């Protein structure tokens, strides 16, 4: 075993794959170097896997990793920044293909607002690169620490999904390296079927190696943000139809602890771009330093320690208090207070408290997010909240958004609304939680709802088939056969939801 080295752990770009192979100790099985063995964890800290992780920085390096997997008889699991809540970027005992080092910005046209990036570029790198020229990503997630490759693989959306669609709608074209080794340029014109399937294709068809997308022109670095309280799911939906649909961004927060006649109460944040003379000094507000999130609160307390201070509140009682206080303060002194916030401060709420997820230690948490058509959403969300109360498993955070349909094959979007519930896992609730998520899933399916792969860790094959439809899965499986005939790309999620595309 001593000399067995398929590649250096740090950089697989130029490593010769087969030169250092030892004769097989076991016929038909090639061991991989243990030095590459790493634990990878879901963002929700509820799942983990051991992978032989490689971090190539070039196209050749990626090809090399596929070759290593082929020789070693293993699957390849694509991974970006690992911000998916569940097992979308994890594969037990696979060769992990981590793309965070393939992170160059290839070109930028500040006149047209078109940027070309490698898949490991973070959303953070993207907006920082463009903001000074007056451009902002048309669609951003709640955290800026996602890779653009991952963003496309999951086809993420933002608080403006009802206006701007998911990120995929702003992609002009991309290069996809299939597991079979073909490098395909995909756009709405060329390889259109792949274009619409690989975006949101959970990394099953190939690896994005180049992404070209259009940014959104902004006249100011600030948004005008209005916050107001709502007293039920019906109310928040009505507020959207009355006024929210005119806003550039619309996001609701739901106090999941409220029950009885208060069930579904929450807050809305609406934000609008500033135009013309609204911002007297856009050159200043568009500077990066005026976008950056401050790293202290009250000017002195480092935010990096905040999650530790939140520790004592990280239980049902504490979170009930936090939710109550947030609602009470915002619905009274904070109601309809309009403030100006930078794009980054408004968009990246999840980055406000670094490592906030650690309050869910040691067992982690799940996020259950459902996307439900307009007609059935109100009853569906109310039933979900009621089911949580009945199960005595209360989500610590609920987030409400508006969506519209899009053209991508495995899309999660509907013409309707979504509710995302952050649910803690504790030593004692795991059985109740498993039962609850099954119940919630059925409630959503009965309402013709859909799910989002970047969040999911609870669905099973039957539920995935129900919401996606057998035809969609067959179409996707067909594309998978074409791009990955050996079925090398695999994740725990693909195994869980689609039996690894091995059959059918």
């Amino acid at each position, binding site marked *: 075993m001593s000399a067995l080295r398929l590649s250096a752990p740090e950089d697989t770009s130029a490593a010769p794959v087969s030169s250092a192979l030892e004769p097989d100790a076991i016929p038909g*099985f090639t*061991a991989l170097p*243990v030095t590459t063995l*790493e*634990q990878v964890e879901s963002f929700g800290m509820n799942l983990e896997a*051991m992978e032989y992780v490689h971090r190539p920085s070039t196209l050749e390096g990626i090809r090399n990793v596929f070759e290593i997997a082929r020789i070693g008889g293993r699957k390849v699991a694509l991974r970006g920044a690992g911000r998916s809540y569940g097992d979308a970027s994890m594969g037990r*005992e696979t060769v992990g293909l981590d793309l965070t080092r393939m992170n160059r910005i290839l070109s930028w046209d500040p006149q047209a607002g078109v940027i070309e990036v490698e898949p490991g570029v973070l959303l953070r790198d993207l907006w920082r690169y463009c903001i000074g020229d007056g451009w902002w990503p048309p669609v951003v997630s709640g955290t800026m620490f996602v890779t653009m490759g991952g963003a496309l693989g999951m086809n993420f959306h933002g608080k403006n999904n009802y206006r701007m669609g998911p990120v995929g709608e702003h992609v002009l074209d991309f290069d996809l390296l299939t597991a079979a080794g073909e490098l395909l340029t995909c756009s709405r014109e060329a390889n259109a079927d792949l274009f619409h399937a690989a975006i949101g294709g959970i990394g099953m068809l190939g690896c994005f190696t180049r992404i070209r997308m259009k940014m959104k022109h902004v006249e100011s670095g600030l948004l005008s943000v209005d916050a107001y309280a709502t007293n039920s799911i019906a109310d928040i939906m009505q507020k959207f139809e009355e006024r929210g649909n005119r806003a550039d961004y619309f996001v609701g927060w739901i106090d999941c602890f409220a029950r009885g006649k208060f069930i579904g109460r929450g807050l809305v944040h609406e934000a609008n771009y500033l135009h013309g003379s609204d911002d007297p000094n856009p050159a200043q507000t568009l500077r990066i330093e005026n976008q950056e999130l401050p790293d202290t609160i009250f000017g002195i307390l480092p935010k990096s320690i905040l999650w530790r201070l939140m520790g004592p509140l990280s239980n049902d009682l504490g979170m009930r208090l936090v939710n109550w206080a947030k609602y009470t303060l915002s619905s009274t002194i904070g109601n309809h207070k309009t403030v100006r916030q930078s794009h980054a401060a408004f968009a990246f709420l999840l980055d406000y408290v670094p490592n906030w997820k650690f309050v869910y230690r040691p067992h982690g948490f799940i996020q259950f997010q459902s996307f439900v058509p307009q007609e059935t959403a109100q009853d569906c969300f109310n039933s979900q909240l009621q089911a949580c109360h009945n199960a005595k498993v209360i989500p610590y955070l609920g987030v409400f958004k508006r969506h519209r349909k899009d053209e991508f094959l495995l899309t999660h979007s509907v013409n309707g609304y979504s509710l995302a519930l952050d649910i803690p896992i504790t030593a004692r609730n795991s059985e109740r939680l498993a039962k609850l998520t099954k119940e919630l899933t059925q409630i959503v399916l009965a309402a013709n709802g859909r799910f989002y792969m970047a969040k999911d860790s609870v669905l099973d094959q039957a539920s995935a088939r129900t919401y996606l439809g057998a035809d969609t899965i067959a179409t996707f499986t067909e594309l998978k056969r074409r791009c990955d005939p050996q079925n090398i790309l695999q994740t725990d999620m693909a195994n869980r939801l689609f039996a690894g595309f091995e059959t059918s």
Partner: protein
Amino acid sequence: MSLPWKRCIVVGASSGIGEAIALKLGQQPGVSVALVARRQEELERVKKAIESAGATGSRAIIYPHDVLNQAEVPALFQKIAQDLGGLDLIVYASGVMPLIEPDEYNFDKDLSTVQVNVLGAVAWLNEAAQRFERSKSGCIVGISSVAGDRGRRGYPVYGASKAFFDNYLESLRNRVARFGVRVVTIKPGPVDTPMTKDLKKKPLLITADAAAEQILTAASRGKRLAYVPGTWRPIMAIVRFIPSFIFRKLNF
């Protein structure tokens, strides 16, 4: 008995304590057990026994392997981890105790004792420790023996091999504890297995099944050292303190 491990390797699973442990693990719902031992037909038998117990979602996979073939271990270990989809527990239960007459000095027997009890254990458990360090979890169980506590007249190399194993397990424990990995040293007295069938004296003899039960219970409760049965703990505490000039006159 409810055990915290889902993916397990038992080395030496074809007979004795190893077999009993493999059966117990395989009777847990949702547990995958890799059965490692030399004799294929014996492994088939254990596999059948596990399957006929019919715990939901449990399975047994057999890997014929001679622990003398230590060069094969890293690759085999990796293959097993792949087949199981990960690893939570490894039990090293392989062990031999060739019959040694009071006046016998037999290097061949000694060599095979060291090969199986010492080198095989190191080959397997090094791999496990290395992996568990990286996964920041896992449990290593080594079946040592009360024989490792003192150097007795009979079975000098067997006793020494178990003393080696004790010391090695302690070192492993001290290495990997900070990664959240547990290393459990098990010290059985005589257990009713093929290995002890020719022994003349078998004080406090227990069945392999009872031993397996106690071993898995101790490991699941986070014990770092367990005598099996527990009665051996006070006995060996006394034996360890017998002064050498008396001990050499004792006939055991």
